[in-house]
Protein backbone atom coordinates (compact mmCIF):
# COMPACT_ATOMS: atom_id res chain seq x y z
CA UNK A 1 0.00 0.00 0.00
CA UNK A 2 2.99 2.33 0.30
CA UNK A 3 2.76 3.23 -3.39
CA UNK A 4 -0.89 4.16 -2.90
CA UNK A 5 -0.12 6.24 0.17
CA UNK A 6 2.38 8.29 -1.78
CA UNK A 7 -0.06 8.80 -4.65
CA UNK A 8 -1.69 12.17 -5.03
CA UNK A 9 -5.39 12.26 -5.87
CA UNK A 10 -8.37 9.93 -5.68
CA UNK A 11 -8.41 6.14 -5.67
CA UNK A 12 -10.51 4.24 -8.21
CA UNK A 13 -13.28 3.86 -5.63
CA UNK A 14 -13.17 7.56 -4.75
CA UNK A 15 -13.39 8.47 -8.44
CA UNK A 16 -16.47 6.25 -8.82
CA UNK A 17 -17.98 7.81 -5.70
CA UNK A 18 -17.34 11.31 -7.06
CA UNK A 19 -19.13 10.47 -10.32
CA UNK A 20 -22.10 9.00 -8.41
CA UNK A 21 -22.55 12.33 -6.59
CA UNK A 22 -23.30 14.00 -9.96
CA UNK A 23 -25.93 11.51 -11.14
CA UNK A 24 -29.48 12.85 -10.61
CA UNK A 25 -32.09 10.76 -8.80
CA UNK A 26 -34.13 8.59 -11.13
CA UNK A 27 -31.53 8.43 -13.90
CA UNK A 28 -31.34 5.57 -16.38
CA UNK A 29 -27.61 4.89 -16.63
CA UNK A 30 -25.30 2.70 -18.72
CA UNK A 31 -21.95 1.95 -17.10
CA UNK A 32 -18.87 0.93 -19.05
CA UNK A 33 -16.32 -1.66 -17.96
CA UNK A 34 -13.71 -0.89 -15.27
CA UNK A 35 -13.99 2.07 -12.89
CA UNK A 36 -17.56 2.86 -14.11
CA UNK A 37 -18.71 -0.52 -12.75
CA UNK A 38 -17.71 0.61 -9.23
CA UNK A 39 -20.29 3.43 -9.30
CA UNK A 40 -23.06 0.99 -8.28
CA UNK A 41 -21.46 0.80 -4.81
CA UNK A 42 -21.77 4.53 -4.17
CA UNK A 43 -25.35 5.54 -4.91
CA UNK A 44 -25.96 8.59 -2.69
CA UNK A 45 -28.53 8.26 0.11
CA UNK A 46 -32.06 9.02 -1.10
CA UNK A 47 -31.32 8.49 -4.79
CA UNK A 48 -32.22 5.61 -7.09
CA UNK A 49 -30.55 4.82 -10.44
CA UNK A 50 -31.67 2.17 -12.92
CA UNK A 51 -28.76 0.47 -14.68
CA UNK A 52 -28.97 -0.56 -18.32
CA UNK A 53 -26.69 -3.19 -19.79
CA UNK A 54 -26.77 -3.22 -23.57
CA UNK A 55 -27.02 -6.99 -23.88
CA UNK A 56 -30.65 -6.78 -22.83
CA UNK A 57 -31.33 -5.92 -19.19
CA UNK A 58 -32.75 -2.81 -17.57
CA UNK A 59 -32.51 -3.02 -13.79
CA UNK A 60 -29.12 -4.67 -13.47
CA UNK A 61 -28.29 -5.57 -9.88
CA UNK A 62 -25.01 -6.45 -8.17
CA UNK A 63 -22.89 -9.54 -8.78
CA UNK A 64 -24.50 -12.76 -7.54
CA UNK A 65 -23.28 -14.50 -4.39
CA UNK A 66 -20.55 -17.08 -4.99
CA UNK A 67 -22.03 -20.13 -6.73
CA UNK A 68 -25.42 -18.49 -7.36
CA UNK A 69 -24.74 -16.95 -10.76
CA UNK A 70 -26.31 -18.00 -14.03
CA UNK A 71 -24.45 -18.24 -17.37
CA UNK A 72 -27.40 -16.59 -19.12
CA UNK A 73 -27.70 -13.59 -16.82
CA UNK A 74 -24.65 -11.48 -17.65
CA UNK A 75 -23.62 -7.89 -18.30
CA UNK A 76 -21.94 -6.28 -21.29
CA UNK A 77 -18.55 -7.31 -19.87
CA UNK A 78 -19.88 -10.90 -19.92
CA UNK A 79 -19.73 -11.13 -16.13
CA UNK A 80 -22.59 -12.70 -14.21
CA UNK A 81 -24.97 -10.19 -12.62
CA UNK A 82 -28.41 -10.16 -11.01
CA UNK A 83 -31.68 -8.49 -11.94
CA UNK A 84 -33.41 -6.19 -9.43
CA UNK A 85 -37.14 -6.47 -8.66
CA UNK A 86 -38.77 -4.49 -11.46
CA UNK A 87 -36.13 -5.38 -14.04
CA UNK A 88 -36.91 -6.20 -17.68
CA UNK A 89 -35.23 -8.27 -20.39
CA UNK A 90 -35.32 -7.34 -24.06
CA UNK A 91 -33.79 -8.04 -27.43
CA UNK A 92 -30.79 -6.18 -28.88
CA UNK A 93 -32.68 -3.90 -31.30
CA UNK A 94 -34.81 -2.66 -28.37
CA UNK A 95 -31.73 -2.20 -26.19
CA UNK A 96 -30.08 -0.02 -28.80
CA UNK A 97 -33.34 1.82 -29.45
CA UNK A 98 -33.01 2.90 -25.80
CA UNK A 99 -29.46 4.04 -26.51
CA UNK A 100 -29.78 5.55 -29.99
CA UNK A 101 -33.26 6.92 -29.36
CA UNK A 102 -32.02 9.17 -26.55
CA UNK A 103 -33.92 7.34 -23.81
CA UNK A 104 -30.92 6.80 -21.52
CA UNK A 105 -29.95 9.77 -19.39
CA UNK A 106 -26.28 9.04 -18.95
CA UNK A 107 -23.44 6.73 -19.83
CA UNK A 108 -20.16 6.59 -17.93
CA UNK A 109 -17.23 5.26 -19.93
CA UNK A 110 -13.50 4.77 -19.67
CA UNK A 111 -11.12 6.46 -22.09
CA UNK A 112 -7.79 6.13 -23.83
CA UNK A 113 -7.89 9.82 -24.77
CA UNK A 114 -10.30 12.75 -24.56
CA UNK A 115 -9.71 15.89 -26.62
CA UNK A 116 -10.67 19.40 -25.52
CA UNK A 117 -13.38 19.51 -28.20
CA UNK A 118 -15.03 16.46 -26.60
CA UNK A 119 -13.65 13.85 -29.01
CA UNK A 120 -13.39 10.46 -27.35
CA UNK A 121 -11.03 7.58 -28.19
CA UNK A 122 -11.70 4.47 -26.12
CA UNK A 123 -11.95 1.43 -28.42
CA UNK A 124 -8.66 0.89 -30.22
CA UNK A 125 -5.03 1.88 -30.05
CA UNK A 126 -4.90 1.38 -33.81
CA UNK A 127 -1.77 -0.75 -33.42
CA UNK A 128 -0.90 -3.09 -36.32
CA UNK A 129 -1.31 -6.20 -34.14
CA UNK A 130 -4.43 -5.00 -32.31
CA UNK A 131 -7.69 -6.90 -32.87
CA UNK A 132 -10.20 -4.12 -33.44
CA UNK A 133 -13.25 -4.49 -31.16
CA UNK A 134 -15.82 -1.73 -30.75
CA UNK A 135 -18.83 -3.31 -29.02
CA UNK A 136 -21.52 -0.76 -28.17
CA UNK A 137 -19.27 2.23 -27.43
CA UNK A 138 -19.97 4.12 -30.67
CA UNK A 139 -23.73 3.64 -30.26
CA UNK A 140 -23.61 4.87 -26.66
CA UNK A 141 -21.71 8.09 -27.36
CA UNK A 142 -23.87 8.84 -30.40
CA UNK A 143 -27.18 8.37 -28.62
CA UNK A 144 -27.09 8.82 -24.85
CA UNK A 145 -28.04 12.30 -23.57
CA UNK A 146 -24.95 12.85 -21.37
CA UNK A 147 -21.55 11.18 -21.64
CA UNK A 148 -19.24 11.16 -18.64
CA UNK A 149 -15.71 9.80 -18.79
CA UNK A 150 -13.97 8.44 -15.71
CA UNK A 151 -10.28 7.76 -16.11
CA UNK A 152 -6.85 8.18 -14.59
CA UNK A 153 -5.57 11.64 -15.55
CA UNK A 154 -2.43 10.19 -17.16
CA UNK A 155 -1.39 6.87 -18.68
CA UNK A 156 0.80 4.39 -16.79
CA UNK A 157 3.73 6.04 -18.60
CA UNK A 158 2.72 9.48 -17.35
CA UNK A 159 1.40 10.78 -20.67
CA UNK A 160 -1.70 13.01 -20.58
CA UNK A 161 -4.96 11.32 -21.55
CA UNK A 162 -6.62 14.73 -21.86
CA UNK A 163 -5.22 16.10 -25.10
CA UNK A 164 -5.69 18.77 -27.77
CA UNK A 165 -6.37 16.12 -30.42
CA UNK A 166 -6.84 12.35 -30.12
CA UNK A 167 -4.15 10.30 -31.83
CA UNK A 168 -6.05 7.03 -31.36
CA UNK A 169 -9.06 6.18 -33.58
CA UNK A 170 -12.19 8.04 -32.44
CA UNK A 171 -15.20 6.47 -30.76
CA UNK A 172 -17.14 9.65 -31.47
CA UNK A 173 -16.46 13.33 -32.22
CA UNK A 174 -17.42 16.02 -29.69
CA UNK A 175 -19.36 13.66 -27.45
CA UNK A 176 -17.86 13.99 -23.94
CA UNK A 177 -19.56 16.31 -21.45
CA UNK A 178 -17.51 15.78 -18.29
CA UNK A 179 -14.32 14.04 -17.22
CA UNK A 180 -13.69 12.64 -13.75
CA UNK A 181 -10.05 11.80 -13.03
CA UNK A 182 -7.96 11.02 -9.98
CA UNK A 183 -6.86 14.68 -9.99
CA UNK A 184 -9.92 16.72 -10.96
CA UNK A 185 -13.39 17.08 -12.40
CA UNK A 186 -13.22 18.82 -15.76
CA UNK A 187 -16.03 20.01 -18.02
CA UNK A 188 -15.72 20.04 -21.80
CA UNK A 189 -16.97 23.47 -22.89
CA UNK A 190 -17.02 25.42 -26.17
CA UNK A 191 -13.77 27.01 -24.94
CA UNK A 192 -12.14 23.67 -24.12
CA UNK A 193 -11.28 21.97 -20.82
CA UNK A 194 -12.62 23.88 -17.83
CA UNK A 195 -11.79 22.89 -14.29
CA UNK A 196 -14.83 22.16 -12.14
CA UNK A 197 -13.17 20.81 -9.01
CA UNK A 198 -9.72 19.80 -7.78
CA UNK A 199 -9.25 16.58 -5.83
CA UNK A 200 -8.15 17.14 -2.20
CA UNK A 201 -4.49 18.15 -1.98
CA UNK A 202 -4.16 18.79 -5.72
CA UNK A 203 -3.30 22.24 -7.12
CA UNK A 204 -4.42 23.85 -10.38
CA UNK A 205 -0.83 23.94 -11.68
CA UNK A 206 -0.33 20.24 -10.90
CA UNK A 207 -3.38 19.35 -13.02
CA UNK A 208 -2.58 21.83 -15.79
CA UNK A 209 0.97 20.43 -16.16
CA UNK A 210 -0.50 16.95 -16.65
CA UNK A 211 -3.15 18.03 -19.14
CA UNK A 212 -2.24 18.00 -22.83
CA UNK A 213 -4.36 21.04 -23.71
CA UNK A 214 -5.06 24.40 -22.07
CA UNK A 215 -7.00 24.14 -18.80
CA UNK A 216 -9.37 26.98 -17.92
CA UNK A 217 -9.70 27.82 -14.22
CA UNK A 218 -12.89 27.20 -12.28
CA UNK A 219 -15.60 29.50 -13.62
CA UNK A 220 -16.41 32.09 -10.98
CA UNK A 221 -20.04 33.16 -10.87
CA UNK A 222 -20.41 36.69 -12.21
CA UNK A 223 -21.17 39.22 -9.48
CA UNK A 224 -24.77 40.33 -9.39
Amino acid at each position, binding site marked *: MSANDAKIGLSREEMAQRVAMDIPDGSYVNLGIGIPELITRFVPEGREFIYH*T*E*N*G*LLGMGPSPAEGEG*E*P*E*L*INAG*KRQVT*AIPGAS*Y*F*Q*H*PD*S*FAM*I*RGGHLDLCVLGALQVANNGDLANWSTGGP*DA*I*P*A*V*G*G*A*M*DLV*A*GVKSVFVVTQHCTKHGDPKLVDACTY*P*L*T*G*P*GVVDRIYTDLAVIAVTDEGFQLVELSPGVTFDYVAERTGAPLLPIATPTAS
Partner: protein
Amino acid sequence: MINKEVPSVAEAVADIFDGATVMIGGFGEAGSPIELIHALIDQGASGLTVVNNNTGSGEVGLAALIKAGRVSKMICSYPRSMNSTVFPELYRSGKIELELVPQGTLAERIRAGGAGIPAFYTATAVGTMLADGKETREFDGKTYIMERGLKADFTLIKCRQADTYGNLIFNKTARNFAPPMAMAGTVTIVQTESVVAPGEMDPEIVVTPGIFVNRVVQVQNPQHESVLVASGVSYP
Protein backbone atom coordinates in the same frame (compact mmCIF):
# COMPACT_ATOMS: atom_id res chain seq x y z
CA MET B 1 -50.56 -29.81 -40.54
CA ILE B 2 -47.84 -27.63 -39.13
CA ASN B 3 -45.22 -29.22 -36.93
CA LYS B 4 -41.78 -27.61 -37.10
CA GLU B 5 -40.11 -30.03 -34.73
CA VAL B 6 -37.27 -32.07 -36.20
CA PRO B 7 -35.84 -35.11 -34.41
CA SER B 8 -32.14 -34.24 -34.19
CA VAL B 9 -29.65 -31.40 -34.42
CA ALA B 10 -27.95 -33.26 -37.29
CA GLU B 11 -31.15 -33.21 -39.36
CA ALA B 12 -31.81 -29.61 -38.36
CA VAL B 13 -28.56 -28.35 -39.97
CA ALA B 14 -28.24 -30.96 -42.76
CA ASP B 15 -28.80 -28.57 -45.70
CA ILE B 16 -26.45 -25.75 -44.70
CA PHE B 17 -24.29 -25.32 -47.79
CA ASP B 18 -20.71 -24.22 -48.46
CA GLY B 19 -20.43 -20.45 -48.67
CA ALA B 20 -23.67 -19.82 -46.77
CA THR B 21 -24.20 -16.79 -44.56
CA VAL B 22 -25.15 -18.04 -41.10
CA MET B 23 -26.39 -15.87 -38.24
CA ILE B 24 -25.66 -17.39 -34.85
CA GLY B 25 -27.43 -16.03 -31.77
CA GLY B 26 -25.73 -15.25 -28.48
CA PHE B 27 -23.82 -12.56 -26.65
CA GLY B 28 -20.75 -14.30 -25.29
CA GLU B 29 -22.07 -17.62 -24.02
CA ALA B 30 -25.56 -16.31 -23.20
CA GLY B 31 -27.83 -17.65 -25.93
CA SER B 32 -25.09 -19.46 -27.85
CA PRO B 33 -26.66 -22.53 -29.56
CA ILE B 34 -23.68 -24.77 -28.87
CA GLU B 35 -25.32 -28.07 -29.86
CA LEU B 36 -26.43 -26.66 -33.24
CA ILE B 37 -22.94 -25.25 -33.86
CA HIS B 38 -21.34 -28.58 -33.02
CA ALA B 39 -23.78 -30.30 -35.40
CA LEU B 40 -22.70 -27.83 -38.08
CA ILE B 41 -19.04 -28.73 -37.44
CA ASP B 42 -19.94 -32.42 -37.86
CA GLN B 43 -21.92 -31.63 -41.01
CA GLY B 44 -18.87 -30.11 -42.68
CA ALA B 45 -20.07 -26.98 -44.50
CA SER B 46 -17.23 -24.51 -45.11
CA GLY B 47 -16.50 -21.07 -46.52
CA LEU B 48 -19.17 -19.70 -44.20
CA THR B 49 -19.83 -16.06 -43.41
CA VAL B 50 -20.88 -15.98 -39.77
CA VAL B 51 -22.74 -13.15 -38.06
CA ASN B 52 -22.42 -13.11 -34.25
CA ASN B 53 -21.63 -10.39 -31.73
CA ASN B 54 -18.37 -12.13 -30.77
CA THR B 55 -16.11 -14.95 -31.98
CA GLY B 56 -16.56 -17.52 -29.21
CA SER B 57 -14.21 -18.61 -26.47
CA GLY B 58 -11.95 -21.56 -25.81
CA GLU B 59 -12.26 -24.33 -28.42
CA VAL B 60 -15.98 -25.09 -28.26
CA GLY B 61 -19.04 -23.68 -30.00
CA LEU B 62 -18.37 -20.80 -32.40
CA ALA B 63 -14.63 -20.79 -31.60
CA ALA B 64 -14.47 -24.50 -32.57
CA LEU B 65 -16.27 -23.80 -35.87
CA ILE B 66 -13.72 -21.07 -36.61
CA LYS B 67 -10.81 -23.29 -35.50
CA ALA B 68 -12.02 -26.05 -37.85
CA GLY B 69 -11.46 -23.61 -40.72
CA ARG B 70 -15.11 -23.45 -41.73
CA VAL B 71 -15.51 -19.70 -41.43
CA SER B 72 -14.02 -17.41 -44.06
CA LYS B 73 -15.56 -14.19 -42.73
CA MET B 74 -16.89 -12.91 -39.38
CA ILE B 75 -19.31 -10.02 -39.11
CA CYS B 76 -19.25 -8.94 -35.46
CA SER B 77 -18.84 -6.06 -33.00
CA TYR B 78 -16.38 -7.50 -30.49
CA PRO B 79 -14.09 -10.25 -31.78
CA ARG B 80 -11.87 -10.49 -28.71
CA SER B 81 -12.91 -11.37 -25.20
CA MET B 82 -11.89 -13.50 -22.26
CA ASN B 83 -10.55 -16.92 -23.36
CA SER B 84 -10.84 -15.91 -27.00
CA THR B 85 -7.67 -17.08 -28.79
CA VAL B 86 -8.81 -18.88 -31.96
CA PHE B 87 -10.04 -15.85 -33.89
CA PRO B 88 -7.19 -13.48 -32.97
CA GLU B 89 -4.58 -15.99 -34.21
CA LEU B 90 -6.31 -16.58 -37.56
CA TYR B 91 -6.98 -12.86 -37.99
CA ARG B 92 -3.37 -11.90 -37.36
CA SER B 93 -2.19 -14.46 -39.89
CA GLY B 94 -4.69 -13.17 -42.46
CA LYS B 95 -6.68 -16.41 -42.62
CA ILE B 96 -10.07 -14.93 -41.76
CA GLU B 97 -11.83 -11.77 -42.85
CA LEU B 98 -13.44 -9.40 -40.33
CA GLU B 99 -16.23 -6.90 -40.86
CA LEU B 100 -16.36 -4.89 -37.65
CA VAL B 101 -19.77 -3.34 -36.95
CA PRO B 102 -20.83 -1.30 -33.91
CA GLN B 103 -23.10 -3.46 -31.76
CA GLY B 104 -26.28 -1.41 -32.13
CA THR B 105 -25.72 -1.00 -35.86
CA LEU B 106 -25.24 -4.78 -36.13
CA ALA B 107 -28.51 -5.38 -34.25
CA GLU B 108 -30.41 -2.88 -36.40
CA ARG B 109 -28.89 -4.17 -39.67
CA ILE B 110 -30.18 -7.64 -38.75
CA ARG B 111 -33.58 -6.29 -37.69
CA ALA B 112 -33.84 -4.24 -40.89
CA GLY B 113 -32.84 -7.22 -43.04
CA GLY B 114 -35.57 -9.29 -41.47
CA ALA B 115 -38.11 -6.49 -41.77
CA GLY B 116 -37.61 -5.83 -45.48
CA ILE B 117 -35.71 -2.57 -44.97
CA PRO B 118 -32.71 -2.51 -47.35
CA ALA B 119 -30.89 0.34 -45.59
CA PHE B 120 -31.25 2.94 -42.86
CA TYR B 121 -29.46 5.99 -41.46
CA THR B 122 -27.79 6.16 -38.06
CA ALA B 123 -25.62 8.62 -36.16
CA THR B 124 -23.54 5.79 -34.73
CA ALA B 125 -19.92 5.86 -35.98
CA VAL B 126 -20.26 9.23 -37.72
CA GLY B 127 -16.83 10.89 -37.63
CA THR B 128 -14.99 7.61 -37.01
CA MET B 129 -13.04 5.21 -39.21
CA LEU B 130 -16.01 2.82 -39.22
CA ALA B 131 -17.88 5.41 -41.32
CA ASP B 132 -15.20 5.41 -44.04
CA GLY B 133 -16.69 4.96 -47.49
CA LYS B 134 -20.27 5.08 -46.28
CA GLU B 135 -22.91 7.36 -47.74
CA THR B 136 -23.83 10.25 -45.44
CA ARG B 137 -26.91 12.42 -45.29
CA GLU B 138 -28.10 15.29 -43.14
CA PHE B 139 -31.46 15.20 -41.39
CA ASP B 140 -32.55 18.21 -39.30
CA GLY B 141 -28.99 19.54 -39.26
CA LYS B 142 -27.35 16.33 -38.02
CA THR B 143 -25.17 13.96 -40.03
CA TYR B 144 -26.01 10.27 -40.38
CA ILE B 145 -24.44 7.38 -42.25
CA MET B 146 -26.26 4.80 -44.31
CA GLU B 147 -26.06 1.18 -43.17
CA ARG B 148 -27.39 -1.81 -45.10
CA GLY B 149 -29.88 -4.38 -43.83
CA LEU B 150 -28.38 -7.82 -43.31
CA LYS B 151 -29.94 -11.18 -44.19
CA ALA B 152 -28.77 -14.75 -43.84
CA ASP B 153 -29.31 -18.08 -45.55
CA PHE B 154 -29.58 -19.76 -42.14
CA THR B 155 -30.03 -18.64 -38.55
CA LEU B 156 -29.08 -20.78 -35.54
CA ILE B 157 -30.49 -19.71 -32.17
CA LYS B 158 -31.30 -21.11 -28.75
CA CYS B 159 -34.41 -20.56 -26.65
CA ARG B 160 -35.96 -21.80 -23.43
CA GLN B 161 -39.28 -23.00 -24.80
CA ALA B 162 -40.86 -23.42 -28.22
CA ASP B 163 -44.17 -24.77 -29.40
CA THR B 164 -44.51 -26.85 -32.53
CA TYR B 165 -45.66 -23.76 -34.47
CA GLY B 166 -42.27 -22.18 -33.71
CA ASN B 167 -43.42 -19.60 -31.16
CA LEU B 168 -40.50 -18.90 -28.85
CA ILE B 169 -39.68 -17.57 -25.41
CA PHE B 170 -36.16 -17.00 -24.15
CA ASN B 171 -34.13 -17.02 -20.94
CA LYS B 172 -32.96 -13.75 -19.37
CA THR B 173 -30.04 -12.11 -21.23
CA ALA B 174 -29.81 -15.08 -23.62
CA ARG B 175 -32.49 -13.41 -25.76
CA ASN B 176 -30.11 -10.74 -27.17
CA PHE B 177 -29.75 -11.17 -30.97
CA ALA B 178 -32.06 -14.19 -31.38
CA PRO B 179 -35.36 -12.40 -32.22
CA PRO B 180 -33.94 -10.20 -35.02
CA MET B 181 -31.83 -13.09 -36.36
CA ALA B 182 -34.95 -15.29 -36.49
CA MET B 183 -36.50 -12.62 -38.71
CA ALA B 184 -33.43 -12.22 -40.94
CA GLY B 185 -32.75 -15.90 -41.65
CA THR B 186 -34.21 -17.55 -44.76
CA VAL B 187 -34.16 -20.80 -42.76
CA THR B 188 -34.29 -20.25 -38.99
CA ILE B 189 -33.28 -23.22 -36.85
CA VAL B 190 -33.96 -23.18 -33.12
CA GLN B 191 -32.68 -25.40 -30.33
CA THR B 192 -34.99 -25.32 -27.36
CA GLU B 193 -34.92 -26.78 -23.88
CA SER B 194 -38.56 -27.84 -24.17
CA VAL B 195 -41.23 -28.18 -26.84
CA VAL B 196 -44.92 -27.76 -26.07
CA ALA B 197 -48.10 -28.16 -28.08
CA PRO B 198 -49.80 -25.10 -29.63
CA GLY B 199 -51.98 -23.43 -27.01
CA GLU B 200 -49.75 -24.32 -24.09
CA MET B 201 -47.79 -21.07 -24.43
CA ASP B 202 -49.60 -17.89 -23.40
CA PRO B 203 -49.85 -15.77 -26.61
CA GLU B 204 -49.20 -12.66 -24.46
CA ILE B 205 -45.68 -13.81 -23.60
CA VAL B 206 -44.54 -15.08 -27.00
CA VAL B 207 -41.37 -13.15 -27.92
CA THR B 208 -40.70 -14.53 -31.40
CA PRO B 209 -43.85 -15.48 -33.34
CA GLY B 210 -43.65 -18.80 -35.17
CA ILE B 211 -43.78 -17.26 -38.64
CA PHE B 212 -40.06 -16.42 -38.25
CA VAL B 213 -39.10 -20.00 -37.37
CA ASN B 214 -38.64 -22.98 -39.69
CA ARG B 215 -37.22 -25.77 -37.53
CA VAL B 216 -37.32 -26.56 -33.84
CA VAL B 217 -35.15 -29.20 -32.21
CA GLN B 218 -35.18 -30.11 -28.54
CA VAL B 219 -31.91 -29.99 -26.61
CA GLN B 220 -33.12 -30.55 -23.11
CA ASN B 221 -29.97 -29.74 -21.16
CA PRO B 222 -27.81 -27.46 -23.29
CA GLN B 223 -24.13 -27.21 -22.41
CA HIS B 224 -22.66 -23.92 -21.25
CA GLU B 225 -19.60 -22.53 -23.00
CA SER B 226 -17.92 -21.33 -19.79
CA VAL B 227 -18.27 -24.75 -18.18
CA LEU B 228 -16.80 -26.50 -21.22
CA VAL B 229 -13.95 -23.99 -21.49
CA ALA B 230 -13.16 -24.26 -17.76
CA SER B 231 -12.91 -28.05 -18.09
CA GLY B 232 -10.60 -27.77 -21.09
CA VAL B 233 -12.98 -29.32 -23.65
CA SER B 234 -12.03 -28.97 -27.29
CA TYR B 235 -14.63 -29.86 -29.94
CA PRO B 236 -14.77 -32.24 -31.74
